[in-house]
Each structure stands twice: as C-alpha cells, then as structure tokens.
C-alpha cells in the first residue's frame, strides 16, 4: 500500500493550485461581498478541463479518477468555497448521474455541453417540506402524450439561477412512496421553468442558491433519466458521490484556514514575540493540521473505493462528516488565532468562518451522515 499521489495527480494538483492562486484568490473576497456568480472563473476553468474532470474523454471531458477530481475541488475551494461547490455539483450531481444512468443519446447531448462549461449544472431534489426526508417530495410529473408535465417547487438549489442543465426529481406515482420518484434531465429554457427567489445566505455567497418553480413545465419523454420509479435510488447513489466532492470542499476550506493561521501567527507580534512562539497557538495549529490530514485521507479513501467499484456510501459519509466538522473546527480556531482582526472582513478567515458551516448541512447533514454510517454497520 502506498499513500502517495501518482505523478499525474501531483501535476494536476500543482496546476489547479497555480490556477486558483492566480485567477481565483485575487477576486474571491469581492465575489463574496457582491454575491456575484464566478462566471469568468468558470469560463477559465472550462478551458483547462476542470468542469469536465470526471466526464469520459469520448464526451469531451478529461475522464479522470475520483481522487484527481477531489484534488481539483479541494484546490479550488481553498481559494473560493463558492466556486468549489459549483464545481462539485456540476461534476458529481449532474454529469455523474447522466454518465451512470443516461442513454447514449442523453450522454451525447448533455455531457459535452457540461464538459465545455457551455451550461452549468444544478441538482434539484430538496423541497420546502422534503430535505433530509427526500421521499416526502411533492413535485409531480404526469406523462401526457410524449411529454411529462411537471408542477411543483424546489428549494436551496446551488447555481439555481445560473444553471442550464438540471437533474430534477419528481413524483410519477404518488401511491408508491419513494419508489414513485423519477429523475429527469431538464433544461432551463423549457417552457414552464422559472427561477424563484435567490437566497441571502451566511456564506458561499458567490454560489447563487435559489428556488426553482415549475408551472406545467413540459419535459420531453426522452429526458426521463433511467426508468420511472428509479429516481430515489438515483438521488441516493448520486449524493454518495457528491459527498466526496463536498468533503473535498471542506478540506479545501480547512486547509485555507490553516494556511492563513500559519502565516498570521508568524507575523503577528504580541508581548514581544510572534504568536507562533506561544504554545496555545502552536497546539491549535497542530490540531488543525492533524485533523485536516486525516480528513484528506478519508476523502482519498472514499474516492479510491469508488474508483475500484466498491460500495462506498459509508466511506463517503465518513469523509463528509469528518471533513465538514474539521472545517468548522478549523475556521473557529483560525478566527481565534487572528483575534479581533479575524472578526473583520479585511481578513480571509472571516469568509472561511461563514463558508465552512454549510458543509455540515448540504448533501446530507452531519446527522444524516451518522445515520448512513450507523446503518451500514448495524445491518
């Protein structure tokens, strides 16, 4: 067993790190402040193939393994967590289910567009009354002729107002419970598709999170993903993979908190010596670094199991649970190390503090992750 990235993965890491430092870091704070979607960054990322990281080469992607993908999301999130989640959703939650469950026609039609970043992807499952309990969703899809007529609304949709291709879940058979849910590939210019309100959030402000409303939306029959009734299964398996992306995002945020803390504690002088000379600060740095390292290996492990065809729900849940709680712990310590300055918007750790919290909530709360882990152990 060798716990080391291969040469190719190292090169990818170096490239994405350089890209993020050069193109993202200088504008991340401004995008957060203005709540501005990182359109220009995404265009540049598309040119480097970063929006099609996991999409097979025959559909215009880079066809990379999940570890490489996790590296991409971590390095992007290290400079901008909003861009990190947009990348994760686009790849894990939109491209992946099409790769896995789509017909050849669907793959040919949608994957190249996603790989080139011509349209950004969104995943629409959550509803006002169906969050962790996805089976309780009410959005309905009724087949009329060769079209499904979809009515309902979705909430907390990452990139909701910006996305062009949406994986949408709706009930096709009310009497069947979760087995009555189906998945669809929807385009934002379909008749009856509407963007509702855009949320004002605590963090990840550059990723537009919105409501989506469907009023008699007409979706061609051929846009059904897999078969009717397969939606719940598709959602769960897709979210398993998505959790690796979010865990990688959390590692990126935590690493950024550590980077900032190390730099600041070496420079800031109190009582005639740098903060880094105080044991209280050293211990915080040591704890942060240790947990980050552990989180990163959990992410790589989940990615490794996924790439080798294993069942990875538990591994992905563990990675997401541990990495997101690590991110939260790291940003709290980072602000503490920065003292009063860390509480101001002048310093990056203030943004990291706000960005970290969501990683414990979306794509399955920490409580849901514990449910997944426990249920796989107590079967």
């Amino acid at each position, binding site marked *: 067993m060798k716990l080391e990235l291969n040469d190719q993965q190292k*090169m990818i890491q170096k490239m994405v790190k350089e890209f993020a430092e050069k193109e993202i870091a200088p504008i991340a704070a401004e995008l957060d402040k203005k709540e501005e979607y990182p359109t220009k960054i995404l265009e540049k990322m598309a040119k480097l193939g970063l929006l099609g990281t996991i999409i097979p080469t025959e559909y215009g992607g880079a066809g990379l393994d999940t570890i490489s993908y996790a590296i991409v999301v971590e390095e992007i999130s290290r400079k901008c967590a909003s861009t990190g989640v947009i990348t994760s959703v686009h790849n894990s939650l939109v491209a992946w289910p099409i790769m896995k469950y789509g017909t050849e026609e669907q793959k040919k039609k949608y994957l190249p567009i996603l790989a080139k970043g011509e349209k950004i992807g969104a995943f629409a499952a959550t509803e006002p009354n169906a969050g962790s309990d996805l089976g309780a969703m009410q959005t309905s899809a009724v087949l009329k002729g060769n079209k499904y007529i979809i009515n309902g609304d979705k909430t907390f949709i990452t990139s909701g107002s910006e996305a062009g291709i949406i994986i949408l879940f709706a009930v096709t058979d009310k009497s069947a419970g979760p087995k009555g849910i189906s998945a669809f590939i929807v385009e934002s210019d379909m008749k009856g598709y509407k963007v509702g309100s855009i949320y004002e959030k605590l963090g990840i402000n550059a990723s537009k999170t919105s409501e989506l409303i469907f009023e008699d939306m007409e979706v061609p029959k051929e846009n059904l993903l897999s078969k009717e009734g397969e939606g719940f299964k598709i959602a769960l398996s897709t979210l398993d993979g998505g959790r690796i992306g979010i865990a990688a995002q959390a590692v990126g945020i935590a690493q950024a908190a550590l980077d900032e803390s190390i730099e600041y504690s070496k420079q800031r002088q109190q009582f005639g010596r740098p903060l880094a000379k105080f044991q209280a600060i050293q211990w915080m740095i040591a704890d942060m670094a240790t947990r980050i390292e552990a989180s990163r290996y959990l992410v790589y492990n989940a990615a490794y199991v996924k790439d080798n065809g294993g069942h990875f729900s538990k591994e992905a849940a563990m990675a997401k649970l541990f990495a997101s709680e690590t991110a939260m712990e790291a940003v709290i310590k980072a602000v503490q190390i920065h003292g009063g300055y860390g509480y101001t918007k002048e310093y990056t750790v203030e943004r990291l503090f706000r960005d970290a919290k969501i990683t414990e909530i979306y794509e399955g709360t920490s409580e849901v992750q514990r449910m997944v882990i426990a249920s796989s152990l107590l079967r």
Partner: protein
Amino acid sequence: MNIIVCAKQVVDVSEMKVDPNTKKPILQGVPQKISDIDKNAIEEAIKIKDKHGGKITVVTVGSSDAKEGIKELLAMGADEGVLISSPDKCDYRVVSSLLAEAIKKIGEYDIVLCGEASIDMFSGQVGPRLAGLLNMPQITYAQNVNAEKDKTVAVRNMGDKSVTTESSYPVLITVTKEINEPRLPSLMQILGAANKPINEWSADSLTKDLEPKVETLELKGIPMERKNIVYKDDVDDSVKKLVDSLAKEGVLR
C-alpha cells in the same frame, strides 16, 4: 521551425529558508520546480510553433527528479524531452558543454531558446556560452520576439533602453520574464504528456570533459533582519537620531 528549449529544475527559492546561525540555505524538504524564466522560454517556443509549425524539444541537465519538471513542460506544449544526467560536480562551463553536445546530437534546429538566467544562481552564463560553443548568433534579454519566416526580430531589454536586433536562423535567444505569461496546461494536456517521450542521456556519453573549473566554496544567505529600533522622543530629536543612525549604517552618505 524546430525549436530547442533549455530548461533547469531548481529549488523553489520562495520556499527556501536560511539557517539563522550558519546563514546556510536549508534545502531539505524545499520543493523543486522549473525555473520561472525557462517557462517563459517554453511559452515563446509554443507561440512560435503555433505560427510556423515544427517541433519543440526540451533539454535539461539534472537529476531524475527533473523528469517531473520536464513532464510539466511537455504538458504545456513541448513535444519531446531530453534529460541529461547531471555529474556530481558541475559548473556553468560543464552544463553549457553538455547542453551544446546534446543540441548537436539532436541535430536540426532553427531556434535555441533559454531563460535569461535561472532563478536559483542567476549567473546568466549558459545562454551566451551555448551560442559560443555552437558558433551561432545570439540575442540576449529578449522582451519581445517576432519570428518571421527567414529571420527573427527581437527587442532586447537593456535596462534603461531597449534595442531591436535582427538575426537569420539558426539563432539562440535568451528571454526575460516580461516577454509573455506562461500558460497552465489543461487536464487533457496533462494526460497527453504521459505519452510524450523523455530520452535520458548520460553525461559521459556526450562529452568526456566533465571537470568543473569553478569550485563553489560556500553558499550563504543574505540576512535581512529588522533592527526593531523605535524612536519615542519628540519628533525633532527622533528625526535627528534616525538620520544619524542611517548615516552610521551607511544607508545615507
């Protein structure tokens, strides 16, 4: 247009620290990278190739670690790499003659591109030495290169002025950092680089004259410590003390 680019793998000097007691640079654990200005040379080579077609070969003298750096240049757009194993002791003369022999062995070339100097030692000798050994015209410190079909026109950065120079082919050009912005390779290019060849040549297969003439006795960092002197008296007194102190340090004359 066949282009040969000479590149060097160096320690990332921005990550390097100096031992406060011995003043010696601490090299252990410091990451390596392709010298920044050599990336400008590759970028320029890619631009010339885009315009005229041809082939780009990267030549490096270094340890096997340098393969990683060569792969990065292949990902950026070079076609082939040559890694010459570095002798234990090396000076600029030895490196230049190894590169010259390798370039002769490669054979066909119209342009040899180098960075003006490497970011670690910054001697700036290798380019001009190579031109001498290969008996070809050279244009150093190019901040702009316009490679035309039969000649190259380059603007040289001479500090306080710039000089436009022209040369027929073959020509050796050393470039400065301002000449361009090196590109990042895309994921697909990184994947593609794995299939591009890197040839490894041993130093003594190229030349037997490997004895360095220059001996490095010691490397020491320049300490830049703050004096942390604060003048708290009234302004006139403080200014006087500050000026006296600067004069004493030799900053003011």
